């Protein structure tokens, strides 16, 4: 028997594979194609206090082995989520993580309070590159990360995961600040800021000019940052960025992630998360591991 269970800072999941925020809505759509019970968890589309329309279109560009997106947190607000989306997800056996983004520190706190213990965990999105105020602005200096984590933490009734931006000079410093601020876990990476130009129209392709890069292209950067973070903090880590196959996921787990999230890969293959769960299981079996938790720290890098 291989134990696929993980416990991320108190969030118990039957397997370590989470649907990444913003790529999976609130589960309804992919639920038509796969059985959501197969997922360890879902991090829902980024929520804001009030409903938001997001950025103008085009909001997506395909790049080599990646995509740029600039959705800009379109959503109907936290209240709508709790009333109309959460009950749907409750029908399934998976951990629900509420990804929240605010314009001000107070908004983050208010959302955390409002959510209470209605979900298994809160993911503090201080790394969204697609909004003018808030978002990534909170995530790029260690001081601000420390402060906002500390403030939100006291308003949280459930484990608090802080989601970090890769657009920083030193991820170790930022991760340490989140830990010092009281984060129960860290997730990374959010998207890398990028751009694409239509040379015929001589215009940026995205209406928002810049957007966030995700998909296989970013995997090497994400993996490096997860490894650096794992060597810095003691709290659990959710690794993501370009994970497409179980081999990718295992790289992240070996690098020090306790769980993984799958985003862009869903667009390509809705069954990706299920294949990844199965592949991790097989790898554990082949390597005579008792469980997926044994993978963390097995990397020979000294």
């Amino acid at each position, binding site marked *: 028997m291989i134990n696929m269970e993980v416990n991320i800072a108190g969030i118990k999941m039957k397997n370590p594979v989470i649907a990444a925020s913003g*790529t999976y*809505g609130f589960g309804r759509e992919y639920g038509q194609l796969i059985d959501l019970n197969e997922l360890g968890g879902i991090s829902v589309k980024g929520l804001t206090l009030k409903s938001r329309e997001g950025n103008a279109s085009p909001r*997506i560009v*395909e790049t080599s082995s*990646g995509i740029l997106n600039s959705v800009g947190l379109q959503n109907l607000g936290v209240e709508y989520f709790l009333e109309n989306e959460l009950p749907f997800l409750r029908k399934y056996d998976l951990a629900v993580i509420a990804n929240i983004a605010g314009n001000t520190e107070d908004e983050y706190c208010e959302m955390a309070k409002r959510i209470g213990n209605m979900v298994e965990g809160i993911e503090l999105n201080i790394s969204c590159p697609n909004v003018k105020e808030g978002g990534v602005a909170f995530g790029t200096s260690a001081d601000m990360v420390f402060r906002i984590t500390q403030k939100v933490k006291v308003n949280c009734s459930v484990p608090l995961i802080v989601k970090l931006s890769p657009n920083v000079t030193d991820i170790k410093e930022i991760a340490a600040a989140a830990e010092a601020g009281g984060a129960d876990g860290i997730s990374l990476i959010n998207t890398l800021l990028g751009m694409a130009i239509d040379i015929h129209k001589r215009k940026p392709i995205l209406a928002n000019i810049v957007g966030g890069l995700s998909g296989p292209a970013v995997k090497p950067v994400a993996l490096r940052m997860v490894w650096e973070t794992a060597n810095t903090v003691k709290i659990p880590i959710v690794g993501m960025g370009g994970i497409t196959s179980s081999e990718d996921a295992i790289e992240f787990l070996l690098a020090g992630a306790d769980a993984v999230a799958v985003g862009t890969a869903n667009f390509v293959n809705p069954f990706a998360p299920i294949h990844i769960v199965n592949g991790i299981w097989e790898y554990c079996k082949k390597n005579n591991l008792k469980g997926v938790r044994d993978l963390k720290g097995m990397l020979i890098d000294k």
Partner: protein
Amino acid sequence: MFNKKCKVISNHEIAPSIFEMVIENRDIAIEAEPGQFLHIKVNSGSDILLRRPISICEVNNDNITIVYQIIGKGTTQLSLVRSLEFIDVIGPIGNGFPIDKEKKCAVIGGGIGIAPLLELSKRLKNCDAYLGFKADAYKIDDFERYCDHVIVSTEDGSSGNKGYITDFMKHIEKYEVVYTCGPKIMMKKVKELCHVLPSVTCYISMEERMGCGIGACLVCTCKTINTDDSKWHYKKVCTDGPVFHAEEVELSD
């Protein structure tokens, strides 16, 4: 909606840069409605990462026909698929064209935009088709099979009338429902023509770049106006559309 590996029955060029592909899948075929689309993985590598949205052109028993134009690397890759190979398809997706068989209808298509109108014509009873092309016309025979009148125009005059198809729609007031798909500029014109005629209902099939293609990621939005309170919202082309009431959508740019 299904995610299936579908057998390719045929795939060949029917006009310069225009390909017709027939794929086989019973589940998708049974559910398919005109105006819906398929989200197709065109290769197995990570190079062309995203799927490509292509409209359902026709349904015949278990077979679905799509017609696509070579635009870039995705459609080029699609054109290289050979018969009996399998392609990975999600579909059918989205809200198709609302159908009322009693009404007098027109389908107005420009270029590759004619594709989703074929299955629609087939399911309508009283339907005229207006089909505009730059140069080489295609699929005219098929429309003639299902429509009362088929009016064709080409910009170079090589088939049918010479000029834009909108120039040959003299009596739009005789229709109760107008369906259109094609270049934005053409659809704008059609929308304007219908707008001044309260008796004509107009439906537009929208295009936008897509990610998931199934309503989860919110990258494919278009601006819509709520006709009741005049407030605008972003709606998803993939699952709130691709077909919208013409009065509802903004055709900017």
